[in-house]
């Protein structure tokens, strides 16, 4: 970067400081090109979607714990016929099987594509990553804005699908053909997905260019905070894994709207009559294309969370991360491997021994880098001086939760044990342990950690702890029983488990899970309160409230448009904590040591 650019920064900041040339409300907060504002837009939108997706699940939890009983509070609302031909989720206050399927499909879709990915990548990636690399903004600010404004309509189409004729998608978030081609409601889902995929592509290109081209002087790749590395790998996964799903989505849309038979085999006989499709297609083709995206997607969900946890742990143990380089290599290897394990979701589709051998071997191999990252994070605790603030509580809670999630992946990744566990509650327990107490804890840690940077004020610690402890306990009471239910042989996506012996025998667990879920909902109230009230009432902070070392803490809190007052330079590794012979127990990357 030339000197001219740093001059520009200074100039940009002057504009801001004087306030005369301030952008109008719309350009500043709605159609903003500032990565921080876009990051916050993503964060808030994603949190709203997460809350909505969680609400859908609470309705399903009612049905599972009390099959056939009138849903309290919302039952009558869901039974209202809004217009002729409207697909009701419930009748006479009781959830319908098709309503249950719609809620299930939308819960999965919303949580993954509208909640966690936008929060982890769109929110944290956008807000934190340019700051951490000392950049004034993203490489393409307008593209960044567009990415959000393509994401939002995609999400709104998904939500609106509940009110469209035919209702919301009912074929699961996996949308297996031929069911998804036959079922109502899928078209809106596909259109929504195409918007979301486009948004992700725009975002990921922006991220990669920014990380490669816009690092501050001195900030070599191996001086990057681990979070940036995680985002870097994630962006590649999004870039390369999403397009096949887009192709598959287009094909499924063609099957639905143009009567093609990409995924429709010959001779289908649906509901008492021959189906209209010519046939000749392959249902397995959809599964391959879908999982080719959806397995890397798992790492899209988990890597940013690992990144956040690494930041928070390094900061709060007051010592450098243990095995930083091996973590980076592990993350890159993880990203690469995630492209060649997808078919372990398809062991039960009649896979031959050779192919299954390949995929279970790659699946076992991919567990190794996860173990390395996890081990490195735990060993990082050794010899530290651990501060138990709210972000740290969430970050360290992430570790055992992710460990359970990862370990329970083992029996699922082996074909023989998968015979019994495939498509049971064990699977649900497994991936929720990775994503819910795993990723979401990472996200909470990130929110508490970077909140002062975004707003200039701290979140309340007491409320934070009031949020953490019940959430932590409830999460385990929700997902651990699911592992047992799956072991007992309860099939997932079952509207009324009571007609099965495994369901009847584990009904008590269902009740326990549901109660825990509702208690957990209440436990989110302190967080919501804390989140909004701290914006005005939180303790004011200077630029570096956590005594942290990475570059984002060199910018003012909140950082102005253009981020840094003077162009930062990186002089050392990211986590120089408790250096010997210094009074402070941290040495930020940008600080020039006076000799």
């Amino acid at each position, binding site marked *: 970067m030339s000197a001219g650019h740093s001059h520009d920064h200074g100039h940009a900041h002057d504009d*801001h400081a004087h306030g005369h040339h301030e952008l109008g409300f719309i350009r500043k907060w709605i159609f903003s090109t500032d990565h921080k504002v876009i990051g916050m837009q993503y964060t808030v939108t994603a949190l709203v979607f997460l809350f909505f997706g969680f609400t859908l699940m609470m309705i399903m939890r009612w049905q599972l714990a009390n099959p056939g009983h009138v849903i309290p509070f919302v039952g009558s609302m869901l039974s209202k016929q809004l217009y002729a031909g409207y697909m009701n989720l419930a009748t006479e206050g009781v959830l319908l099987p098709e309503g249950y399927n719609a809620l299930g499909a939308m819960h999965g879709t919303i949580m993954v594509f509208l909640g966690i990915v936008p929060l982890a990548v769109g929110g944290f990636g956008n807000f934190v990553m340019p700051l951490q690399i000392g*950049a004034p903004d993203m490489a393409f*600010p307008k593209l960044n804005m567009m990415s959000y404004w393509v994401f939002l309509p995609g999400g709104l189409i998904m939500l609106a699908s509940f009110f469209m004729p035919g209702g919301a998608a009912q074929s699961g978030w996996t949308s297996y053909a031929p069911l998804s081609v036959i079922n109502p409601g899928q078209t809106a889902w596909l259109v929504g997905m195409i918007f979301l995929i486009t948004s992700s592509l725009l975002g990921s290109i922006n991220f990669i260019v920014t990380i490669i081209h816009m690092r501050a002087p001195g900030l070599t790749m191996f001086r990057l905070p681990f979070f940036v590395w995680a985002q870097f790998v994630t962006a590649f996964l999004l870039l390369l894994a999403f397009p096949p799903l887009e*192709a598959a989505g287009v094909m499924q849309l063609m099957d639905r709207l143009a*009567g093609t038979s990409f995924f429709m085999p010959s001779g289908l006989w649906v509901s008492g009559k021959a189906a209209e499709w010519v046939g*000749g297609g392959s249902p397995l083709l959809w599964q391959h294309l879908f999982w080719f995206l959806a397995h890397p997607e798992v790492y899209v969900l988990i890597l940013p969370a690992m990144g956040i946890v690494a930041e928070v742990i390094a900061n709060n143990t007051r010592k450098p991360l243990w095995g930083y380089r091996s973590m980076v290599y592990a993350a890159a290897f993880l990203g690469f491997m995630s492209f060649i394990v997808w078919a372990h979701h398809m062991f039960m589709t009649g896979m031959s021994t050779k192919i299954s051998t390949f995929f279970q071997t790659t699946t076992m191999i991919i567990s190794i880098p996860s173990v390395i990252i996890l081990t490195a994070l735990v060993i990082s605790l050794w010899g530290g001086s651990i501060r138990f603030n709210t972000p740290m509580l969430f970050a360290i809670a992430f570790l055992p939760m992710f460990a359970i999630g990862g370990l329970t992946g083992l029996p699922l990744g082996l074909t023989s044990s998968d015979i019994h566990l495939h498509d049971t509650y064990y699977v649900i327990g497994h991936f929720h342990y990775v994503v819910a107490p795993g990723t979401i804890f990472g996200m909470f840690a990130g929110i508490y950690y970077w909140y002062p940077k975004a707003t200039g004020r701290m979140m309340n610690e007491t409320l934070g702890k009031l949020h953490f402890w019940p959430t932590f306990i409830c999460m385990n009471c929700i997902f651990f029983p699911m592992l047992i239910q799956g072991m007992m042989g309860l099939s997932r996506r079952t509207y009324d488990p009571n007609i099965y012996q495994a369901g009847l025998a584990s009904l008590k667990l269902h009740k326990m899970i549901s109660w825990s879920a509702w208690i957990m909902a209440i436990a989110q109230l302190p967080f919501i309160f804390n989140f909004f009230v701290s914006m005005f009432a939180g303790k004011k902070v200077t630029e570096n409230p956590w005594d942290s070392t990475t570059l984002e803490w060199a910018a003012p809190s909140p950082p102005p448009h253009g981020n840094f007052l003077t162009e930062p330079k990186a002089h050392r590794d990211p986590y120089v904590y408790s250096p010997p012979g210094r009074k402070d127990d941290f040495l930020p990357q940008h600080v020039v040591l006076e000799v």
Partner: protein
Amino acid sequence: MDVAIPCQVKPHPVTGIANGKLAIWLFLASEVMLFGALFSSYILLRTNAETWPRGHDILSVPLATLNTAVLITSSVTMVMAWAQLMMGNFSKGRKYLAVTLSLACVFLVVKFFEYKDKFHHYQVWFNTPTMVAGHEVTTITGHIEEKTDDFIKFLPDPPKGHKAEAGHHEPIKIETSQIKRLSNYGPWHSNFFAVYFTMTGLHGLHVIGGIIVIGYLLGPGAKLWHRDRQFYINRIENTGLYWHFVDLVWIFLFPCLYLI
């Protein structure tokens, strides 16, 4: 008030390219995955199919060859536009750009006629083998002259190699009760046409995208030349990369769909 972004115009010291070029390469990587998925699906469907038509039997190879030539020429003119701009010849560069744009439009027009023909060409499958023009057949192809609830008047295609005597063929009347299936050559006709329309359609959308971008750079976007010459040339170069990719996809599509 925009923040100054480094490497917007000048190449990055390490990678040696500017932001835009890196981004376009990444974009093309994702495009490779998109079309790669479609080509894989095509291979899978074709290898699994009991029968798969030869493209040259049912598609117009001459038109597609013409289109191939059109697209390749447009790629050449795109490079010429960039070269002229590099030499500082703004007006010549624009002319080449305009030629590229018109060639892209020609491509779409030709494609439109190809599509239109398919939608007016029908195939009839009979319930039982039926005598048509002295042969017992289960299916015939041709054009519909008249359609009612009870019957269709159908003008069969001349047999292969008898195109000159097309006049000999009279329309025949087919009762609705005889028809097992009646379909034009739209995407619903068979998996071949599903693949054909989806892939060429998606490629066509890419061509339209190219037209919009080139049109912008030719029209309102050209002002940038006077403000920041290098920036404008970069944009032309990046658009060119994209355009070559669109061309390349067609070069794969042409043999895959029309020839083999």
